[in-house]
């Protein structure tokens, strides 16, 4: 699934432009402590978080993420959107909780180990 398909499938709202929407979503990660995300988020993941400040863009670039979703209807800061567009990192928003959206993503096969 790429970012664009994920947006359509789960009814997410892109806060950024078209850049990066073709990226493949290879895994998922949840969390709000940036230091922990910086250490552990897998490359190519979609990251589910409540943080909307500009540091999330640096973290997403560092971990080579596919996209960031702000959960619970939260909106990114203006500066975050500006930086994300510069870096080509899609920032998406949606009403779901992280638990809810992570469950749906996993059920749809994102980050699920291939069946033996």
């Amino acid at each position, binding site marked *: 699934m790429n970012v664009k398909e994920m947006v359509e499938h789960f009814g997410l709202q892109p806060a950024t432009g078209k850049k990066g929407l073709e990226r493949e979503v290879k895994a998922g990660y949840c969390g709000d*402590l*940036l*230091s922990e995300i*910086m*250490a552990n988020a897998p490359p190519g993941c979609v990251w589910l978080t409540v*943080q*909307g*400040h500009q*540091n999330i863009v*640096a973290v997403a*670039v*560092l971990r080579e993420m596919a996209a960031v979703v702000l959960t619970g209807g939260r909106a990114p800061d203006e500066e975050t959107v500006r930086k994300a567009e510069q870096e080509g990192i899609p920032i998406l928003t949606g009403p779901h909780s992280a638990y809810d959206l992570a469950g749906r993503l996993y059920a749809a096969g994102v980050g699920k180990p291939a069946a033996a």
Partner: protein
Amino acid sequence: MAVDDLSGLREFKADLHIHTCLSPCGDWEMSPRDVIRRSREAGLDLIAICDHNSSENAGAAMREGLRAGLAVLPGMEVCTREEVHILALFEDLNQALAMQEFVYTGLSGENRPEVFGYQVVANEDNEVVCENPRLLIGATRHSLEQVVRRTHALGGLSVSAHVDRPANGIINQLGFIPPDLELDGVEISYRIPLAKARERFPLIGALPCITSSDAHFLKDIGRAATVFRMAAPRLREIGLALRAEQGRGVLS
């Protein structure tokens, strides 16, 4: 601004949270020398240098402050394990450097300047000394409580930074201010008038409030400042003012 009176106390306009080019998000122009120059232009009597998780530019700023006639305290904006930002303010550079050593023992990772920004150690003559290779944007493994305790053990003051902010403010990170945390005060960002702080953020409770610029750019230095009534621009006096002891106090 500073008014003498019979008590020997006067007003000091203080900006106790200023970054330099050492902070990855700090502007290149924030050299210790230019920070001092701009602080004087902004009419400040006292500043503190608080870079992220490091005090490596504090010494140069203090020496330049001495040369230029501006009181400069060494400090640091520590990012705790909970990703709460806490200002650790000191009187002497050695105290700040001891705090830095403590913070560094819990700080891992290397900076990626192209992602997070350059971390420039500069001297008071505006020369680059080196780049700090550590991941200063990161969080130390020490907890909030450990950071406050160590700050006090070293003789410093512990002020919870920008408590009104969603990014790394204690109220957002924890949901409340732990009542047993021995903070000397809280800082309100420039976005909110100091007089409104308690009303807007009732969780501050009875903790003393200050405001500062949190400047990352020269133009922002002094955009918020705290006026203290005290005898001298010293850390001990700030402590007295925060506790409203011996006639000292926070005026505005």
